């Protein structure tokens, strides 16, 4: 009887001066669902890379089926039956689901070789059989990129099972799913477990760990700090181990009485360009001193709505800011009118990663005095303004001249907020503000948003974290298929929000 299906014994790994893993020990029993939790940068990814044979540990070793194992590379780990579902799915979007299923291990009639004819009938039969076994239905001839995101995930899992995976590693599998889809995924994982497959899943959502896992291991600063069966621990105890013994600071959430309408949107529509979601007849108001949450499964028009409001994509209908008509204006004009914009894509749109912290935090203010003087920039004024802005939001950094990419995710996001709130605009458009930010950073960013609201600012907040929306928002709008499907109170039942998110037509 095997005791450990997959494990690590005193694993150390460093990258240059960074000690990513220090003495990690992990034991996953066969047919167990084992959760690994920890903050960003705690060393979870490094451990996963070691377990998959992508990296070799400096010291210690991996255990597979009770045996000490040294992988020469990822192919060997795959041969040992270890397979991983990544956060970004490994499906070619323009191929069909069936083509993706068999890619790299195609059933052929007769002899093999690259020119062998693929036996599509056999491929489809195999796909159907596997799908039946784990209780899902798949339209195998659908283009992968247009299949619902949870189906893509299921197909990826089926692909691994088909290729003999007995130990399945999932990296934050629920990040892109709606609550209902999360439930479906969990049901599926339980059925796979019943089939004898061992499951290791990485998460930072304690709620999911307690719902699904048999056992949990907490990693902090590269070391295992806690491991227990779920029956012997509690959500609070797990949380306290994630952040150094104390529960994570939670932003106080006091809601005042909202004032007058700041942002008035009436009949906003935008056509689909390339692969974007069409916006259909959207109307709502955001008042002063109010945070309005925007919930929805990823890809239902939240990004497009934010872009339309900021003038990044063309739209029809009317947008008024404090009574001023913004329709048809370009982003710079809208910014000047008083909109701050926090993009969901911090690395591409929020910051110029290769530029310095000071340049990033003053960007947009370089034309006006005191920084801009005719053709010239005043470096001294620039430095002064930058330090002032960075100080106001207590960004932690080495030198203002350092590249912004040297900061942690939370501090990078604070730089973005420092820039966007500098001119105290009446309205902030905020998307996924805490994506890739650790728990302490999340608390700081929430505090910034609440402070902005307390000073009478209006915020439209799109987030895929329902918890975040419920903590921060005064009310929540749910987007489905490019329209507002409904409005709910911030303390509405999660199930109800979830049901609304997957109403007809949802992707």
């Amino acid at each position: 009887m095997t005791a450990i299906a997959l494990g690590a014994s005193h694993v150390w790994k460093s990258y240059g001066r960074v000690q990513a893993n220090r003495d990690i020990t992990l034991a996953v029993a066969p047919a167990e669902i084992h959760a690994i939790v920890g903050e960003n940068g705690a060393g979870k990814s490094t451990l996963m890379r070691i377990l998959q044979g992508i990296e070799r540990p400096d010291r210690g070793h991996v255990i597979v089926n009770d045996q000490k194992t040294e992988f020469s590379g990822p192919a060997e780990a795959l041969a040992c039956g270890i397979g991983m579902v990544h956060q970004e799915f490994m499906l070619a979007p323009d191929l069909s689901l069936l083509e993706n299923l068999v890619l790299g291990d195609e059933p052929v009639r007769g002899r093999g070789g690259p020119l062998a004819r693929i036996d599509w009938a056999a491929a489809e039969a195999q796909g159907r059989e596997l799908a039946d076994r784990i209780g899902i239905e798949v339209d195998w001839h659908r283009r992968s990129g247009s299949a619902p995101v949870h189906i893509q995930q299921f197909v990826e899992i089926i692909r691994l099972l088909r290729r003999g995976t007995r130990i399945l590693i999932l990296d934050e599998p629920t990040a892109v799913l709606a609550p209902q889809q999360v439930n479906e995924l969990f049901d599926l994982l339980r059925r796979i477990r019943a089939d004898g497959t061992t499951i290791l899943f990485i998460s930072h959502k304690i709620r999911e760990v307690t719902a699904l896992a048999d056992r949990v291991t907490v990693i902090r600063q590269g070391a295992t700090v806690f491991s227990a069966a779920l029956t012997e621990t509690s959500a609070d105890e797990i949380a306290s181990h994630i952040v150094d013994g104390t529960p994570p600071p939670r932003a106080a959430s006091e809601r005042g009485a909202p004032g007058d309408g700041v942002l008035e949107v009436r009949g906003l529509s935008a056509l689909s360009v390339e692969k974007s979601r069409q916006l259909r007849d959207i109307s709502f108001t955001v008042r002063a001193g109010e945070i309005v949450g925007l919930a929805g499964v990823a890809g239902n028009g939240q990004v497009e709505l934010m872009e339309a409001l900021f003038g990044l994509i063309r739209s029809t209908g009317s947008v008024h800011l404090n009574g001023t008509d913004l329709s048809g204006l370009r982003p710079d004009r809208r910014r000047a009118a008083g909109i701050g914009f926090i993009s969901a894509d911090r690395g591409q749109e929020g910051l110029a990663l290769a530029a310095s912290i000071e340049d990033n935090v003053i960007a947009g203010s370089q034309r006006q005095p005191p920084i801009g003087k005719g053709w010239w920039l005043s470096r001294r004024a620039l430095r002064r303004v930058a330090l002032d802005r960075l100080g106001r939001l207590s960004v932690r950094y080495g030198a203002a001249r350092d590249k912004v990419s040297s900061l942690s995710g939370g501090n990078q996001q604070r730089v973005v907020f420092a820039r966007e709130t500098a001119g105290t605009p009446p309205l902030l458009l905020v998307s996924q503000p805490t994506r890739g930010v650790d728990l302490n950073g999340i608390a700081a960013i929430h505090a910034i948003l609440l402070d902005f609201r307390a000073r009478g600012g209006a915020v439209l907040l799109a987030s895929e974290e329902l918890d975040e929306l419920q903590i921060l928002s005064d009310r929540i709008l749910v987007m489905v298929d490019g329209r507002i499907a409904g409005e709910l109170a911030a303390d509405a039942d999660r199930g109800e929000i979830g049901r609304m998110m997957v109403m007809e037509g949802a992707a």
Partner: protein
Amino acid sequence: MIEQIAAAAILLTTPILMAAMGGLVNRQGGIVNIALEAKMLIGAYVAVVVSSASGSWMLAVLAAALVGTVIGWLFSLTITRLGANMIIAGLGLNVLAAGALGFVMTILYGSSGTLRLPDTVLLPRLLPEGVSQIPLIGRMLAGLDPLTVLAWVSVAALPFLLGSTRIGLWIRATGNAAQVVRSVGLRPALVQDVSTAFAGFFSGLAGAHLALYSIGIFNEGLTAGRGFIALAAFYFGRNRPWPTAAACLLFGILDAAQIRMQTVGLPPRLMGALPYLMVLAILVLTQMRSLRRAK
């Protein structure tokens, strides 16, 4: 008149069609090959030289295809292994091929521009002369050569090769998402090398057809941008073999028509530009249409 244009159109289509089929596979594999022109030109040169030296059209064709394949493979290595930008590398190869051939001709043959060698054997005609008596298509049939047949066979075979063979699936997957191909244990760089070598093979054949169909003379301006027309053709055909072939045939018909029109006394330079202008106009129109559809 129509008969003659049809016969000429088919033979003028062949080199473009071959280069386009190679480039199409290459592009499905994720490489935009703008060096089809260079490989055609080199293929044409090799074909003329080998044909004259060996007296065998078949050896000449094989040599052209082989040289095209090798150059395609080397070209691919600069992109997939050395990380060269595919457009810059392609541009470089086009310039290099033209320059090197001019140099070689001056050094070896002391001729500038045109190379005329003795005893050059042309491509044979497949059907007996008698078939030209058949009305309408007779002249066309009589003109058929092995490479033209091969070109159209490849058009018919490619949908199957790309759609239902393992290598076809690998090529499409590589062009679509190389990291996915890597994650399932295949080597996307190797798959791309194969697809670029394939493009080189067909470009070499295209060059051989240009040189050995009717004149057996190599000329520095022989390809006259046909490699780029092929590029336009598979863009127009969205990488699907039959629509791409249709685009190639259209150019062939326009080219044949303009040659006829020159004989009726219209200004030859202007007429010669006509097929290229038409291709430009069609590309603009189709692009406008697809933009409108996207909205």
